[in-house]
């Protein structure tokens, strides 16, 4: 309640009281509850936090101040002064983001104070999928949950319990993995459409590190990026933006050069000195071509690349087949340009090559990543200034005193769908959905929603009703990340080991419960109880962090960590993950990318891409909805980017309503003519098109994932989301569905774009 409405409410109730002779109805009169004791009115304090909106694991500094919240106490509605999070800023010393934060991180505070948050445990009351729930008490909810867990056969094969969650390398995710293995379950199965499983696999093969690289942009003099939107949505954007700024302007007299290779200009590509569009899926060939030129010049010897080179067929021979001319025929670039790009890498040492996004989301993505790894190794960019590093990783299982060997490797989502949720398979008896929305991100051919509808029991611990959690029978809402103990282990973004960790910033606003506490209590109450060395989430974290030395002072690690918002420094050997010393894999060769759909019937490549909302999980935050998209200035909408030449050939004008048809579905959207996309491609941001995801995101725009072909990377099972072909046709005039903030698109010249509004 803001001050103005408070005053008016006071006046109104005061007047009412006067008019009715003091016989005001108690239910409508304003009740002020005693405020919490730790509040200093008007005094701001700053508390550490951890951002969990994406896997980057940035540290937060949260401004906390008093605010008047509407609360219900013993059935009486009233107002209580509480401490509320006001503003999220980056953790000042945090090695990943050093005080900075991206737009998503800034908007995260709205997830805690979202009007459509689930405020208490719910039980399904209508048919599954109708989203009808009744509120229940925590006692009842807990009892029901324990009953479900008790009903599980822990020795069943295939496992009777499954868990869907977002990737979490921290203690929460690790604990859940251990719990699942104790209960004979499987998971957590990562729901992460734009996740980089392919790149992790490639890095594991080339360098023995199953993690994303940390790029030392600040020291690089030349950066070549193959599709990696490293300033927007890929890997650790804040850390990378920090490095990018330093690369461009941080050194006197040296300005790092940056070339972006991609078929659709990303926000990152918009910043490149040279933007190089290539045919989709041929980035790996380009990497081989560049390596060929580098090898030809003799500046670096092939064996410099070591094991990374061995992963690429023909490497030791100098890649004789990958001449600029041969690569030119594949990629569509001029041979001279390939030569020039390669020589710029040599001349620009320290130079580094990045790969991410669409190049890895093709059937040949793994090879492309391996080729880039080899090229980086050749250029001497591994663990060197201006190159890529692998952030030392804490062994969270070891820190928690648990044996990592107990935990089975979770299958990829595609694999799980194929084996357990397809027709005729044996589905799990109990599925827990943890703040993830696979129904929204799954390709339609998986028929995931239909499969989930058939499951005996689904429990959700998420904070919002979305396409997946609205199928749940029982909802046990977790605290928000500002209300609970939270930790994250960033896999990249810093050169030292980092564990981001923070105590609750504010007290829970609603009647929610920490999922870890919930699971600890539930497992202790089972008919066959499971015992853990700690009783609460806090105790778990305290015990785990106790294995680490204090990083600054000689004092107590646990106290220090809570004050600093995490731990970073040199990991003791006992809790450090070593590089995997696996056998050298067999060399792989470039193969042409495969696409689903014939070029005759579906002439255009379809490229969904991670938007401000990433894969859609952040579409419920109004600040992000209203933030103009960096490239298009679109707000509250989605669109199809299309090259003006292609649009002209199809008779499509800016803003026209078009229909996009793939072999797996049809969506409608507004066309947006963009010069930054190849004529053979149409692109669409992911994240909109929710059918049920809060008042802000529901029924807004279209979901490009809804027409994707179920093509997967054979090695990892990751969805090859860039491998669909589509047909586009105009179906109507602009109808206002595309909302743009900007008027003109060009600063000079005739730009008479008809206004969409």
């Amino acid at each position: 309640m803001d001050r103005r409405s408070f005053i008016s409410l006071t006046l109104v109730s005061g007047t009412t009281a006067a008019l009715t002779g003091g016989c005001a109805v108690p239910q409508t009169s304003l009740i002020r509850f005693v405020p919490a004791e730790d509040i200093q009115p008007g005094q701001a304090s700053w508390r550490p936090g951890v951002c969990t909106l994406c896997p980057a694991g940035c540290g937060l500094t949260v401004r906390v101040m008093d605010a008047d919240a509407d609360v219900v106490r013993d059935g009486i509605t009233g107002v209580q002064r509480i401490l509320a999070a006001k503003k999220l800023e980056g953790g000042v010393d945090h090695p990943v983001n050093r005080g900075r934060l991206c737009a998503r991180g800034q908007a995260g505070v709205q997830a805690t104070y979202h009007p459509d948050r689930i405020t208490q445990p719910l039980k399904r009351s209508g048919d599954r999928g109708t989203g009808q729930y009744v509120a229940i008490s925590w006692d009842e909810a807990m009892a029901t949950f324990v009953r479900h867990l008790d009903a599980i056969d822990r020795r069943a094969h295939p496992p009777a319990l499954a868990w869907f969650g977002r990737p979490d390398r921290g203690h929460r995710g690790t604990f859940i993995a251990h719990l699942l293995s104790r209960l004979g379950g499987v998971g957590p199965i990562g729901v992460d459409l734009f996740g980089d499983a392919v790149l992790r696999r490639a890095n594991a093969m080339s360098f023995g590190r199953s993690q994303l690289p940390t790029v030392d942009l600040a020291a690089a003099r030349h950066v070549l990026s193959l599709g990696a939107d490293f300033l927007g949505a890929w890997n650790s954007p804040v850390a990378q933006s920090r490095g990018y700024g330093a690369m461009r302007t941080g050194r006197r007299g040296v300005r790092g050069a940056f070339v972006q290779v991609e078929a659709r200009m990303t926000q990152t590509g918009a910043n490149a000195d040279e933007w190089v569009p290539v045919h989709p899926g041929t980035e790996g060939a380009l990497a081989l071509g560049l390596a060929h030129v580098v090898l030809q010049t003799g500046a670096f010897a092939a064996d410099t690349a070591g094991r990374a080179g061995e992963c690429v067929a023909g490497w030791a021979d100098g890649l004789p087949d990958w001449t600029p001319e041969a690569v030119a025929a594949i990629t569509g670039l001029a041979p001279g340009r390939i030569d020039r790009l390669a020589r710029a890498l040599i001349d620009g040492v320290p130079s580094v090559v990045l790969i991410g996004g669409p190049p890895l989301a093709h059937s040949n993505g793994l090879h492309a990543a391996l080729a880039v790894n080899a090229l980086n190794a050749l250029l001497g960019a591994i663990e060197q200034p201006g190159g890529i590093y692998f952030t030392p990783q804490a062994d969270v299982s070891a820190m928690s005193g648990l044996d990592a060997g107990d935990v089975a490797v979770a299958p990829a989502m595609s694999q799980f769908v194929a084996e357990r949720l397809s027709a005729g398979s044996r589905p799990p008896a109990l599925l827990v959905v943890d703040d993830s929305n696979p129904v929204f991100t799954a390709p339609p051919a998986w028929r995931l929603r239909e499969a989930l509808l058939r499951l005996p029991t689904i429990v959700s611990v998420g904070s919002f009703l979305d396409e997946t959690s609205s199928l749940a029978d029982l909802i046990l809402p977790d605290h928000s990340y500002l209300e609970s103990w939270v930790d994250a282990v960033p896999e990249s973004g810093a050169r030292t080991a980092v564990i981001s960790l923070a105590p609750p910033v504010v007290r829970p606003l609603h009647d929610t419960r920490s999922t870890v506490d919930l699971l600890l209590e539930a497992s202790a109450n089972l008919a066959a109880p499971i015992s853990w060395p700690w009783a609460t989430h806090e105790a778990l974290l305290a015990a785990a962090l106790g294995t680490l030395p204090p990083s600054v002072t000689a004092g107590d690690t646990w106290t220090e960590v809570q004050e600093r918002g995490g731990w970073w420094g040199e990991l003791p050997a006992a809790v450090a993950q070593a590089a995997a010393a696996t056998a050298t894999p067999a060399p792989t060769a470039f193969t042409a990318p495969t696409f689903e759909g014939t070029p005759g019937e579906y002439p255009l490549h379809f490229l969904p891409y991670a938007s401000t909302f990433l894969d859609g999980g952040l579409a419920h935050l109004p600040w992000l909805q209203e933030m103009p998209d960096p490239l298009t200035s679109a707000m509250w909408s989605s669109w199809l980017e299309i090259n003006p030449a292609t649009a002209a050939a199809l008779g499509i004008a800016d803003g026209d309503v078009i229909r996009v048809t793939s072999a797996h579905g049809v969506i409608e959207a507004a066309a947006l003519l963009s010069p930054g996309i190849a004529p053979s491609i149409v692109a669409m941001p992911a994240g909109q098109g929710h059918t049920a995801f809060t008042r802000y995101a529901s029924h807004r725009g279209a979901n490009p994932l809804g027409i994707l072909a179920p093509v997967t990377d054979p090695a990892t099972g990751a969805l090859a989301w860039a491998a669909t072909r589509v047909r586009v046709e105009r179906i109507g005039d602009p109808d206002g569905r595309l909302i743009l903030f900007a008027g003109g698109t060009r600063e000079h010249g005739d730009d008479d774009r008809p206004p969409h509004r």
Partner: protein
Amino acid sequence: MTPARPPSHEQMTADLLRPLLRTTWRFFLLAAVCTAPVLAGLVAWATQAYYGFGVTGLGWPVYWGFYITSFVFWIGISHAGTLISAILRLVDAGWRRPVTRCAEAITAFSLIIGAMFPLIHLGRPWLAFWLAPYPSERMLWPNFRSPLVWDFFAINTYLTGSLLFLALPMIPDFATVRDNSTGVRRRIYGVLALGWRGSSAQWHRLETAMAIMAIAIVPVAVSVHTIVSFDFSMAPVPMWQSTIFGPYFVAGAIFSGIAGLIIAMALLRRFLHLEAYLLPLHFDNLGRLLLVMSLLWAYFVFNERLVTYYGNEPSDMAVFWRTQRLSFAPLYWTMVTCNFLVPLVLLGVRRFRTISGCVTASVAVVVGMWLERFLIIVPSLGHKFLPYSHGSYRPTPIEIVIAFSTFAAMALLYVLFTKLVPIISIWEMKAGATADTVRS
């Protein structure tokens, strides 16, 4: 049809008092027809005040639209009267006599209506009094450097002057009404006549006062529309920052004012049967004047456009082309047709310069001048310097209703006025007839 002889004094008194003394159902019908849109306008305004300005079609970056267009339009129409009648008085043009009062009435009413638009247009109209210089408890004065405060002063002066200019010559006519009526009406007009007797001392003072007022009101009228033009030309907006705006606006104002006057006169002539007083001569004279103003207007437009085109400043040119041949071109060329081509043909060719020809041309000019103000405001605001912030504007029904209702309000005020005041100054007609007799 010119009557062979001018009507006698008795006839004049009878003819000109008839609308006041005899009320038929036609009057009530007309008043009702005019009142309905006014009520609709009030409802629309109340809606806007209650829900907020969002009910309009305005938005970033076009923050001025129909209301300011209407404001400038009505202030322009107001130049019909006082300015024309003052100039004609000063040059002692005999044919002015039947025209002056209905012209001055247009001025007074259109000024009242025009002055309402800044209020309608305010985000927080209940605080409009902050424009007035009064010693508040915090000693917060208005900013005398703001063109809007100039507007406030100029319109107040002009409105005060115009009302007095209209009211002073009405006093002897009120005395005539008083003497020709009975009962309540006699008492009311007796009060309004302020004890007017018609002594030579009174006549002399009245005529001297009118001469002074006429001299004073002309520069005030010029200043008002110059200052209205300053609302635009003081802001660094493409195609606004122009030194020509002052005279351009004044010329446009007189232009639209004459057109408004011709329409009003034709309606009065028709409905009040004043064929013997509002003669084809008057329409012919005003038609010539309108033609001159049309040419002057075209001259200013040519000046404005040529200088912009030749200067070739990018931001100006963006607006220039937008009106000349892009999205606003249909409106622009309609405006040119209405303001230049139609008057040129209908008024320039003697054969067409009939009463109906003059009225047709005037209607075209009123439409064209409304469009002119719209085309000055909206294309420029929508295309300022940074193309990212370009935008457009489309009015909502609320704005359209309010803008339309002011035309009805004008008609209503006029209908009521003719019911209460002799629309042609009786004493001036008599004096004119006598002077003509003496002269002949």
